[in-house]
C-alpha cells in the first residue's frame, strides 16, 4: 500500500468520527446554525479536503522520521565519539536506554536560554537566516523516497516526480546563501569571515558534487530517485563508479561542514564562526539543521550509490534505507573525529585542482559504461 493511500484511509476514518459531531450538532441546533454545521460536515467529507489533509499528514510523517533520525544521530555521534575518545557518551539522563534522553534535556535547556539580538544587527537578515536554512534543508527531503511506496512527491497515479534528484540538490544548495546572510547580518568581524569562508567552500564543492550526480543519472537514465534505485537492482553504483563514490563522499562532507572541512565553524579561531551571535533556540535550530543536513546527505548517498531500499526481503524497504543512511553517518562520524581541520585555502585548492578533474574522469567512466551497454 502506498503512503498516500495509507494517509488517505487514516484521514477518512478520522473525518468520519469528527463528522458525527458536526452532523449531530447540525440536527440539534435550529435555523442557520444547524445548516452551518451540516455544511462543515459535507465539506470535510469531500475528496479534495481529505486529499489535502492526507498530504499534510504525509509531510508530517516524513518530517517526524527526519527529526527522530536527527535525535538518533546526535546520540550516535556523541556515543561513538565518546568511545573513540575513551570516555562514555551521554550516560546519566535516560540511564537505561544509554543516555538517549540527553537530547531532550539539551533541547529544553536551549529553550529556556535568553534569546539575544545584537542591537546593530540587520534585523531582517538576522531573523530570517535560520528560517531559510532550516526550511531549505527540510525541503530537500521532500523528493527522496524511502521506498517506492513511501514518499511524498507522488502524483495521483503513483508516479514519483521525474526530476527528484535535481530538486533535492537544488534545495540542498540554498543553504550557502542563508549562511552568508547570517554571517553578514550579525555585525561581527568573525562571523563575516566565517560566512564568507563557508560560502566559498560550499560553492566550490557543489561542482564536483553535481558532476558526480550527473554521472549517476547518466548511468540510470533518469533524474527520478525511483528509477536510479531500480537501475541498481543488479549491482550498486558504488562499485562501478567507485571513484565517483569517493568524490561524492568528500564533497558531501564539505557541504555538511563536518571535520575535516569545518573551518567556517572552527572553534579554535573564530569562536563559533557564523553562528556566534545566535543564542537560545535559534542556535539550537542551526545545530539541529547541521545534523538534519547530514541525514539528508546520508539519504542521498544511499539512494544514489548504495542501492536505496534493496536488500534482503525479511526487512521492509524503508528500514533498509534508514539502516544504510545510519551506516553512512557512522562512517562520516568516524572520519570526523580522527582528522584535523584543513585550512581554508587548502580546502579550496583541493576542491578545484583535485576533485574536479576526478569528477570529470568519473563522468567519462560513466559515459563509457553506458556506451558499452552494460547498464
Amino acid at each position, binding site marked *: 500500500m502506498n503512503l498516500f493511500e495509507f494517509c488517505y484511509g487514516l484521514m477518512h476514518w478520522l473525518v468520519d468520527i469528527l463528522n458525527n459531531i458536526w452532523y449531530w450538532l447540525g440536527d440539534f441546533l435550529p435555523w442557520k446554525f444547524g445548516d452551518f454545521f451540516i455544511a462543515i460536515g459535507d465539506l470535510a467529507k469531500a475528496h479534495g479536503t481529505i486529499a489535502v489533509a492526507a498530504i499534510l499528514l504525509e509531510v508530517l510523517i516524513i518530517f517526524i522520521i527526519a527529526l527522530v533520525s536527527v535525535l538518533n544521530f546526535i546520540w550516535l555521534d556523541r556515543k*561513538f565519539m565518546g*568511545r*573513540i*575518545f*575513551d*570516555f*562514555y557518551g551521554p550516560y546519566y539522563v535516560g540511564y537505561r536506554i544509554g543516555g538517549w534522553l540527553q537530547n531532550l534535556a539539551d533541547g529544553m535547556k536551549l529553550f529556556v536560554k535568553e534569546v539575544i539580538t545584537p542591537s546593530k544587527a540587520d534585523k531582517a537578515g538576522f531573523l530570517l537566516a535560520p528560517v531559510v536554512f532550516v526550511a531549505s534543508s527540510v525541503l530537500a527531503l521532500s523528493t527522496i523516497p524511502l521506498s517506492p511506496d513511501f514518499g511524498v512527491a507522488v502524483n495521483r497515479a503513483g508516479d514519483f516526480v521525474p526530476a527528484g534528484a535535481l530538486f533535492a540538490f537544488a534545495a540542498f544548495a540554498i543553504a550557502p546563501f542563508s549562511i552568508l546572510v547570517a554571517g553578514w547580518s550579525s555585525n561581527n568581524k568573525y562571523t563575516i569571515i566565517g560566512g564568507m569562508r563557508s560560502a566559498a567552500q560550499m560553492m566550490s564543492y557543489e561542482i564536483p558534487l553535481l558532476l558526480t550526480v550527473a554521472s549517476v543519472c547518466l548511468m540510470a537514465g533518469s533524474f527520478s530517485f525511483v528509477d536510479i534505485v531500480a537501475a541498481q537492482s543488479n549491482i550498486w553504483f558504488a562499485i562501478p563508479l567507485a571513484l565517483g563514490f569517493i568524490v561524492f563522499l568528500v564533497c558531501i562532507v564539505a557541504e555538511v561542514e563536518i571535520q575535516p572541512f569545518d573551518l567556517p565553524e572552527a572553534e579554535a579561531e573564530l569562536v563559533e564562526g557564523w553562528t556566534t551571535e545566535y543564542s537560545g533556540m535559534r542556535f539550537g535550530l542551526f545545530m539541529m539543521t547541521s545534523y538534519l543536513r547530514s541525514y539528508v546527505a546520508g539519504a542521498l548517498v544511499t539512494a544514489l550509490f548504495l542501492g536505496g531500499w534493496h536488500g534482503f526481503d525479511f526487512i521492509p524497504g524503508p528500514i533498509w534505507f534508514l539502516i544504510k543512511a545510519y551506516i553512512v553517518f557512522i562512517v562520516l562520524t*568516524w572520519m570526523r573525529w*580522527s*582528522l584535523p581541520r584543513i585550512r581554508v585555502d587548502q580546502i579550496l585548492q583541493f576542491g578545484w585542482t583535485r576533485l574536479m578533474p576526478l569528477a570529470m574522469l568519473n563522468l567519462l567512466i560513466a559515459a563509457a559504461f553506458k556506451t558499452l551497454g552494460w547498464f
Partner: protein
Amino acid sequence: MAQAQKVTFSGWVVRPMMRTMTQFIRSFVTGKPNTVLYPYQKLDLPPTYRGLQTLDFKKCIGCGNCVEICPNDCMWLEKLEDPELGKIERPGVDIGRCLFCGFCAEVCPTCAIHMTSEFELANRDRSKLVLGPTAIRDDTYHERFAEERQKQRLPVLDLSKCTSCEKCAGECPEMCVAMMPMDGVGTSKPEISLHKCTSCGKCAEVCPEKCLVMTDVYEQYFEMPEPKFVLKSCTGCSACAKACPADAIYMLEMPGTEKALKDGKKGKPKKRAVFVLEKCVGCGRCFRACKFKAIEMPGVEK
C-alpha cells in the same frame, strides 16, 4: 629524526582512522572507557593527598607556628573553653583562602594537624568556608591513620632535680653529654648534642634522680628561631614560663642572691629562667611576653 616526513596516500584518511578504530575497540569491546563515574564511583587517593585539615585538640599546644608559616594568612588562633582541657587557644582555617600547601601540617611540632583526603568542600556561602577549631576537630585521627613524620627519642632534662653528679656524661657511648656551667645557679648542667644522640637511653637509666626522660620528639625540618637568654635583665617574673606553650621554660632559684631583710631573716632567692631548647618550638611567645628585654630572638617581630 632530521628527515622530513613524507606525505603518504594512506595518511589522508586510513592511518588516523585505523588508530581511532583501535581505540574504539579497546573502549567498547575489549575493555571499559577510562572514566571514573563520579559521584557514584570514587577516586582512589594516595595517603599523601592534601585535603582538608584536621586538628587534634589534645596534641595541639597552641603554639601558633602554623599561623606564622601559612603563606596566605588563612589561619588564626582562637581562644576556647574546653570542658576537659580548660582555657586553650587553637587554630582555625579559612579554606576560602587556603592553598592546601601542607605547610601547617609540616611545621607542627606535635603533629596535631593532618591533611586528610577530603576534597568535597564547596559551599554556596563564602562565610561557611571559614572553619573554626571545633569544626576541624578530630581527636581520633591518629588512631585511624599511621603517623607521617619520623620521631626521635631524645633525652629531655629537668634541671630542678639535677645534682650535677655527672654520671650521664660518663655513661654516654657517643660522648654527646658535656657538663656546661650555668650562670647564676652555680651548678653545671649536662648539655646534650642532639645530632649525635643515638637514642640508646643509657643516660636516662643511670641518672639517680631520674631527671633525664626519654621523650618522643617529632623531627623538625624548618629551622625555627631560638630564644637567647640575657641573664642580666631577668627579674624572675616568670611571664615567659607562663606564656610558653611547650613547657620549655621553668624558673630556677639562684642560690646566693637572697636579700637580707630588715629583721635579719633572709628573703627568697631570685629566680632565673631556664630554657629547655629540645622542647622549644620557636613560637616566640616568651619573646613577646618578656617586658625586660631579657630574651632576644633575632628575626621575630614583637
